[in-house]
């Protein structure tokens, strides 16, 4: 008799403990999937509103629906029928020059990679938070190149060991996405300086992106005899954005 009474309680307890909670769907799990236009591409989740909870289709084609829902949403690009994540990589985030010798330029490099499937274009811009600066506040100025003809918007030749400062070169590895003023590996620019303030400048871009568009950034530094000893550093920010 006692066993009969206990059995349902044990079952209820077991179910309560073992059953997975039923959660509202907060996202769609697949990275790439196809939702045929003109319905809405909702790549990373379903939209909701304070007054409505929607599926993947909003009312862009039905004339009265906008007034009813109060919004229309489209996520992703209309023409590719899928949502491909926009991806950006930097091969090395630490650019260490080691000990610097007067009149002996040093270079370091890293590789920027952008992947965007077959979707729209992209751009990568760059800027520095300040010129290379020591703890004592001394600066290694941005280079002006051999003929004092380069700045943050246009590159110039920097090949002489008597030209000092800090600059960078961009070289295509795959794709043809580097600004054309980087004619070859001897052409350098200054980084746009946020503290100046100078707006970030495009260092890679393309109206069409495939997989793994790569470009190499070469950082170059050369110091003069008047440069005070110290450890100099700054932060270079690369901003990768897809086009619209």
């Amino acid at each position, binding site marked *: 008799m006692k066993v009969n009474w206990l059995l349902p309680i044990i079952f209820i307890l077991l179910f309560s403990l073992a059953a997975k909670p039923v959660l509202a769907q907060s996202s769609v799990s697949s990275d790439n999937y196809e939702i045929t236009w003109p319905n809405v591409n909702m790549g990373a*989740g379903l939209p909701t*509103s304070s007054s409505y909870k929607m599926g993947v289709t909003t009312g862009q084609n039905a004339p009265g629906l906008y007034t009813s829902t109060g919004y229309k949403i489209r996520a992703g690009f209309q023409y590719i029928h899928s949502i491909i994540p926009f991806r950006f990589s930097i091969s090395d985030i630490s650019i260490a*020059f080691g000990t610097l010798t007067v009149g002996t330029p040093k270079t370091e490099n890293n590789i920027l990679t952008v992947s965007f499937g077959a979707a729209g274009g992209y751009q990568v811009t760059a800027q520095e938070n300040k010129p290379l600066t020591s703890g004592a506040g001394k600066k290694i100025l941005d280079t002006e190149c051999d003929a004092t003809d380069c700045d943050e918007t246009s590159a110039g030749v920097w090949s002489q060991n008597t030209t000092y400062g800090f600059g960078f070169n961009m070289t295509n590895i795959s794709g043809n996405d580097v600004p054309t003023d980087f004619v070859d590996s001897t052409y350098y620019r200054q980084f746009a300086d946020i503290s100046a303030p100078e707006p970030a400048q495009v260092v890679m871009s393309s109206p069409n992106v495939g997989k793994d568009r790569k470009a190499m950034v070469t950082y170059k530094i050369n110091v003069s005899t008047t440069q005070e000893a110290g450890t100099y550093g700054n932060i270079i920010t690369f901003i990768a954005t897809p086009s*619209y």
Partner: protein
Amino acid sequence: MKKVFITTTTFLLFTFYFLLFAISANAQSLSLAISPPLLEVMIQPGKSITQVYKLSNPGEIDLAMTSKVLPFSPQGERGEIAINNQPSAINNQFLSWFSFQNANLALGDKFLLKAGGEQEVVLKLRVPENAPEDDYYATLLFETLPSPFSGESGAQAQAKIGTNLLLTVSRDGRPPRKVEIIEFKVLKIIDSFDRPHFLLRLKNTGRSFLKPMGIITITGWFEQKYILELLPENILVNSLRQIQCQSEDNPQPCRINSKFLLGRYQVKAEFGLDQLSEDYLAETTFFALPIKLILGLVIIAAIFWIVRFKLVIDKSLF
């Protein structure tokens, strides 16, 4: 002897183990991915929506991250943007409409994105009742926090990855849509073996971002037709965009895929705004002539003539 054997074997095993399993000192690479890359919203004042974004770290190191929403303006004619890092409070009040709805993460908070991990953020957009009917463009940026300096001179690279938000605030959902055809051109005379490139530049003179949808039709002397489909890319208010074409979902320049063209061709671009129609029409013409072929024939004829002339002279000498 036995001791030597054991020592040698142990040494070899250790060497083999280290060669196989030693971890190389790799450079610290960084990788970020975001989806969806673009969000287009048309919304009434007083309404709100949410959108889930997935930020992932396919790289090998954990990343300290933060987020922000900044306004941008269109730049160039190919969909580039200029992010405004120092938005003025008055002109960019709309930035306060954005927030995160995550339980444990607010917009601007620092968070750790583990190597191989991902973070979902729920972006909420709440448009106030008194919001002016207009277009608003912003980028949701996720940025890595730079690591401490290593103690030697150098730079630290920081990455920011963005996804664009195009927002139209409209009460009736029908903001004025208008474009101006700035240019529709092709080289007037091309070689028959070349593939002509059609340049279509449009300016959005309306009050909301829009997409041109339509085709370019190229008709030859013998009524042969080539059709190129315009790529429905966004043109933002008061900005210009060079329109591309598409083939099998791939953006590409507007070029005819032909091996040989001959004669006069009539070219028509017909498109509508956000829907297929013939509301807008631009026309041009071009001529395709076998210039390279004619030049080649002339050169061959000249060589033939010279050789023949030389032979005649040689014969007359003997």
